[in-house]
């Protein structure tokens, strides 16, 4: 066996704290190593050529590259050795950068650790067997979770690319947060005017199946072949009949239902259609408030409905869909005012959140676009905006910036001035974050043209005084306390993960950060991929994001799916479990433990019952391997022998 070892300087990243020459020298002494050298940038093209050349020149049959993390370049180098005629699994990587040169300054210790990392890799690679991927057919349908702007963009791009799309939206209408906005920054064009057409396109696209007011119940399968169960929640209105005429809403006697679409700015009817441009434009009953459900008597809507669509007996329905890829665009949430007791914690009706103010500004909102105070419906003259209401606040566990508040506050202040020319807006801020194209100009305009007063400091407290609200803050630039007697206070409440983000992540087997936002595969180079192949991310479910960024990600995710589906088959990862049927005693332990049901019984000619792995289903976790009492089932590329070889490399010396 002739192993070749290539140690990377990675410029100074490795060579700075590791004596690469010494590592190479020690490597040469290792049994089985025929050749060892160092190179400035092994991943560069000449670097890879160097490896190919060496393989030919030195007749190498195994290759170890000691460089960065395999999570970074394992695939790169596997391709390299393959091009040189070796099986791509005759290759191992030793991580001497992230796990070594970057964790300390002590050259002696680092060098020694690097040498041992190489040693582990050498012992492993000597145990490696050639593996050959098989190919499997893929189902070229895609599931998009979330009908906000990111999800709709992804759905449309996929559909226009010829894919069948299943779009699942948990609320009764498409549109998400963007549908609630009045105008959008920095252009101040009407939000629903640019979103509405997209919503229509989605609903009319022959390749898109829309499940509104539905949620993901269960996800089974693997990249290329997922089985999805979708829960269609009971609306108590037969949508196949409902024409959205709104007669029922008119007549509904229960007027105090919570209006989810308007974030409770004003109450709505127990049976309602969220907003005029809603798609689908269908009515839905909220049983928490409907008197037919609470009191057991009413039935007004059933009487009034011209098409007899009302059905109080309706139950949730589970439908199944099969897809090959999933795009997650489940959006974000906002903290409740009760997290901010010093700002009244929701006890003062005229202290509202930014999204509530959007609804008040919005022509199709509960106040028909007239800016009035929730408390007494009078027109406010002094409006105070408080940025970072909960954001960048460790004391409530939200240390991060919510990304778009600075911008929408500027927008809302400008709109306020447009609506009420004799009004005065104040904005309390810590930093103005406006890095986007045309963004900073926009916040400047708010101050220069619209005379919005920006005050650099946090607000400590808000309390009522007569009809006014006293906003007690600081102007750190003046080094004084400031007070504003406001008619209305708008809090830019912090962006948080969507309420059920974690539950969905667990169904998808994707990971989330400590705040519940989904984790991308690589922060820079794989921003819309996840570590679960076949599952992609778009929009604010991955972190606070504004509209352009969300749309961009929607398209990016769609592109990823389209390129994946450009082939008819996918290469299956050969790193899966394999049964040695001569040793298998048919105890069925593996069958019971496999989380994917990838192992089944097989009866041999001699009547023996043994385990058999369904190649396309096995995900390669290796649980069966460590469960098997006789080592009959082995996870390829991570067999007992291979792992023990690594252990022994460290111990028996």
């Amino acid at each position, binding site marked *: 066996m002739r192993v070749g070892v290539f140690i990377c300087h990675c410029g100074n990243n490795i060579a700075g704290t590791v004596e690469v020459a010494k590592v190479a020298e020690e490597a040469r002494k290792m049994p089985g190593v025929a050749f060892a050298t160092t190179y400035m940038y092994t991943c560069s093209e000449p670097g890879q050529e160097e490896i190919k050349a060496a393989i030919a020149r030195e007749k190498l049959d195994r290759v170890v590259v000691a460089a960065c993390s395999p999570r970074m370049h394992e695939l790169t180098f596997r391709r390299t050795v393959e091009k040189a005629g070796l099986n791509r699994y005759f290759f191992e990587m030793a991580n001497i950068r992230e796990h070594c040169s970057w964790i300390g300054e002590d050259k002696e210790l680092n060098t020694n650790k690097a040498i041992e990392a190489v040693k582990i890799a050498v012992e492993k690679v000597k145990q490696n067997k050639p593996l050959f991927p098989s190919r499997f057919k893929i189902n070229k349908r895609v599931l998009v979770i979330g009908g906000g702007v990111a999800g709709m963009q992804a759905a449309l791009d996929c559909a226009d690319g010829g894919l069948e799309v299943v779009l699942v939206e948990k609320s009764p209408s498409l549109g998400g947060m963007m549908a609630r906005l009045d105008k959008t920054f920095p252009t101040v064009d009407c939000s629903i005017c640019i979103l509405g057409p997209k919503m229509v396109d989605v609903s009319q696209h022959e390749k898109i199946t829309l499940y509104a007011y539905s949620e993901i119940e269960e996800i089974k399968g693997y990249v290329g072949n997922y089985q999805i169960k979708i829960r269609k929640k009971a609306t108590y209105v037969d949508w196949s009949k409902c024409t959205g005429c709104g007669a029922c809403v008119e007549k509904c006697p229960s007027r105090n239902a919570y209006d989810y679409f308007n974030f409770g700015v004003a109450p709505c009817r127990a049976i309602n259609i969220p907003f005029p441009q809603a798609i689908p434009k269908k009515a839905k009953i909220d049983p928490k408030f409907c008197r037919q459900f609470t009191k057991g008597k009413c039935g007004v809507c059933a009487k009034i409905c011209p098409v007899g669509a009302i059905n109080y007996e309706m139950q949730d329905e589970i439908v199944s869909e099969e897809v090959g890829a999933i795009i997650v665009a489940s959006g974000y949430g906002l903290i409740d005012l009760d997290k901010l007791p010093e700002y009244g914690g929701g006890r003062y009706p005229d202290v509202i959140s930014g999204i509530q103010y959007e609804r008040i500004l919005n022509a199709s909102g509960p106040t028909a676009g007239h800016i009035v105070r929730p408390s007494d419906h009078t027109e406010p003259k002094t409006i105070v905006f408080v940025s970072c209401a909960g954001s*960048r606040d460790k*004391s409530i566990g939200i240390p991060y910036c919510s990304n778009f508040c600075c911008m929408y506050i500027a927008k809302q202040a400008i709109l306020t001035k447009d609506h009420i020319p004799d009004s005065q807006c104040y904005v309390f801020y810590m930093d103005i974050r406006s890095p986007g194209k045309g963004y900073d100009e926009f916040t400047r305009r708010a101050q220069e043209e619209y005379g919005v007063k920006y005050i*650099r*400091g946090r*607000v*400590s407290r808000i309390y009522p005084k007569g009809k006014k609200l006293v906003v007690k803050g*600081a*102007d750190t630039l003046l080094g*004084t*306390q400031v007070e504003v007697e406001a008619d209305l206070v708008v809090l830019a409440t912090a962006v948080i993960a969507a309420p059920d983000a974690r539950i969905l992540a667990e169904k998808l087997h994707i990971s989330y950060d400590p705040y519940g936002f989904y984790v991308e595969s690589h922060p820079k180079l794989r921003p819309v991929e996840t570590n679960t192949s076949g599952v992609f991310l778009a929009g604010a479910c991955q972190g606070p994001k504004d509209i352009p960024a969300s749309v961009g990600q929607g398209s990016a995710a769609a592109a990823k799916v389209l390129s994946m589906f450009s082939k008819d088959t996918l290469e299956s990862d050969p790193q899966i479990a394999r049964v040695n049927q001569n040793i298998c005693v048919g105890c069925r332990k593996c069958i019971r433990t496999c989380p994917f049901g990838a192992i089944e019984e097989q009866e041999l000619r001699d009547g023996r019952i043994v385990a058999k792995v369904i190649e396309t289903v096995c995900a390669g976790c290796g649980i069966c391997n460590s469960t098997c009492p006789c080592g009959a089932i082995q996870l390829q590329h991570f067999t007992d022998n291979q792992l023990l070889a690594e252990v022994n490399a460290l111990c028996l010396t």
Partner: protein
Amino acid sequence: MEPINLTQNTDWEFIEQVKKESGENPSLCYQCGNCTAGCPYTKYFDFPVNQIMRLLQTGQKETILRSRSIWLCATCETCTTRCPCQIDIAHIMDVLRIIARRENYVAEKEVKIFYDAFLSSLKHHGRIFEVGILMGYNFRSGHLFTDADLGPKILGKGKIHFLPPRIQGRDKVAEIFRKFEEKRKSRG
């Protein structure tokens, strides 16, 4: 205000000293101003709280220890309660006050005199003898008639004892003072 030469006039030891004595890390402060905004005493401070924190971050020992702010802080805990960076600001103010006293910077004579009067009452009687303190304070501060107007109000209501309280344990309390002074000296 004089320009500050950060190269020459940053007192790094002072920053470390305050870190050590308070167990708080001034670098956590991002100057949002919430402390100043909520502080009932900002109006009376020569440096608002957030500037004290800033001066601390930049190691301006002299300015801080000479400031009146640290003596006018009543430890009402508003800043600590609302700090988004979870810094115990009131505790830092406390530590600054202690250092100022130790190194004889006292920008607010009256306050210190009152505290001393309080402490000597504590030392001698084990409990606080309000009239004693007031008289002691008025005498030392030279403001002979401070709150004299209040005298009659409480007098009439039998709220004042003209003799200090006496507890057996008062020598024990005095003992605490003695041991502390000794320690202080031995520490130098």
